[in-house]
């Protein structure tokens, strides 16, 4: 059961990273088209709107993969001096805390998205609705929270994080 859930977490992580990577490539293309267009007096309308909203996709799209690859910075100066049980306890604490933070981000941003929809908030030039990107952010945060919950569950019930550095293709 746990392994199957983790497999789903890995698949969703890969999907989120794929969307984030596409977002980054889109950013390069859009800004480049704008710069080239500007020198022909035909800048891309709304390039800044697209690139800044794509940034939301890039940043939170990569968050779950970053967690899965243990990419978040931590201070490991005292690790060699920590007893094994304390290392285990701190791993569980970090995973639970991380899951709570990302659930919190998802929940608060979802509420904020509802407000944005109600007020019809959008970007300045081409009027991209901000709520779309807030929903995307919340979705990616949920995927990350799911991954961190799986990490915590593996640590608590199996005694290891279940991470091999690999993600589902």
């Amino acid at each position, binding site marked *: 059961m746990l392994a199957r859930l983790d497999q789903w977490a890995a698949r969703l992580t890969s999907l989120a990273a794929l969307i984030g*990577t596409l977002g980054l490539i889109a950013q*390069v293309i859009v800004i480049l088209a704008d710069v080239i267009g500007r020198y022909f007096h035909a800048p891309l309308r709304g390039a*800044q709107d697209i690139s*800044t909203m794509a940034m939301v996709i890039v940043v939170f799209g*990569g968050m779950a*993969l970053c967690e899965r690859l243990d990419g*978040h910075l931590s201070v490991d100066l005292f690790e060699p001096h920590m007893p094994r049980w304390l290392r285990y306890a701190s791993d569980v604490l970090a995973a639970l805390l991380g899951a709570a933070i990302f659930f919190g981000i998802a929940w*608060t941003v979802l509420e*904020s998205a509802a407000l944005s929809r109600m007020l019809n908030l959008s970007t300045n030039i081409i009027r991209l609705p901000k709520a779309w990107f807030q929903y995307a952010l919340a979705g990616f*945060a949920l995927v990350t929270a799911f991954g961190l919950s799986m990490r915590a569950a593996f640590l608590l019930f199996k005694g290891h994080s279940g991470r091999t550095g690999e993600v589902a293709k």
Partner: protein
Amino acid sequence: MSDMSIGVTGLMILVGLLVLRVPVAFAMFAVGFGGVAVLRNWDAATSLLASESFTLASSSELVVIPLFILMGNVASATGMSRRLYDAAYALIGRVRGGLASATIIGCGGFAALSGSSVASALTMGKVSLSEMERFDYDPRLAAGSVAAGGTLGILIPPSTGFVIYAILAQESIGRLFLAGVLPGILLLTMFIVTITLMCWVRPGLAPTGPRTTLKGKVHSLLGALPITSVIVLTIGGIYGGLFSPVEAAAVGAALVILFGFVSGNLDIAGLWQASKDSVVTTATVMLILIAAHMMNPFLALSHIPQALGAFLSGLALPSLAVLALILLCYLVLGCFLEGFTMLVLSMPIFFPVILALGIDPIWFGVLVVLTLEMGLISPPVGINVFIVKSVAPNVRLGEIFVGVLPFWVAMLLTLALLFAFPSISLILPNTMIGGG
């Protein structure tokens, strides 16, 4: 319980979580959120969480981060560092210690592409260490030059360190990039002078290298031309007013990708991997930035920065002495904390003091980024030293730390020069953009 006691308790919890290896961003989120909830209320904390997450992730200025990271990752994947090194090698490899100096120049060139010290040390280490071993260089000099040269990545623009500082201090990225140019060149020169002096005192450290024919020199220099063009176009474009930093980063990334495809050193799979790596690195950096913005209101509400400012003012020291004290704190902290972590943790505390003392924030940014660089090669957690160790497994860690010591002294001298002569940092931003 007073606001100040809550602030101090929060900081103690933060330190406790960091000691327990909880990721820095998670620890800052928890303390920032909890602190605001206690000092204000739950609604203020949840609304801060939502607004900071979305506002920072959709900040137009921060678009520069993934793009410069992408440019560096693609440059690394396409072997551009090799070409830079070959060009420097052809020019000065013949001189005693020339290969180590070529490594420093190569690192400086790569730094102008990548903005990351770790990437500079890793890619240049792979290229240059085997060459220096082949020509019987002392392993301490070889490893030390790579570890120290790599640190140029966060001083020479485009620098991720400056971007992060700019966001935390709400300063102009363009001004900070300009401010880093002369100090970067000065530090690079100091490193080369250090190598020359070491080889002059102890000629056995590095034999003279092989002579390169004129044809070989021309060939190597032509090989580095595309990379040099990318550097000149992107960095020159920012300074010449052609591009904003974001546009320069996108143009640079596109040119590096184009060069990779044309030269046959990059395929779709390589580009995809470099892009995915860039997304992951961006997530790491951005989560810490968002977390730092959760901590700032908590610290402001607890009045800790004001109390620290009042304490330092009470010491009746001149503002430069206070600045020196703060830099000393950074030097000590740099021995134990990763540079980026140290920056986001300390800025909310020290920066209001710097502003209150009337110290130029651009100048302070350059000094702080240089101290972060020193932390990259300071024991026991100098990350560049571990990077070099990963590409030179035969050299003992202790030897690498001994090897970087002369370069650390060179950095300290550079820091002293930049401290004594602020105009080295400020002349370019003030003359090209105007007073802040």
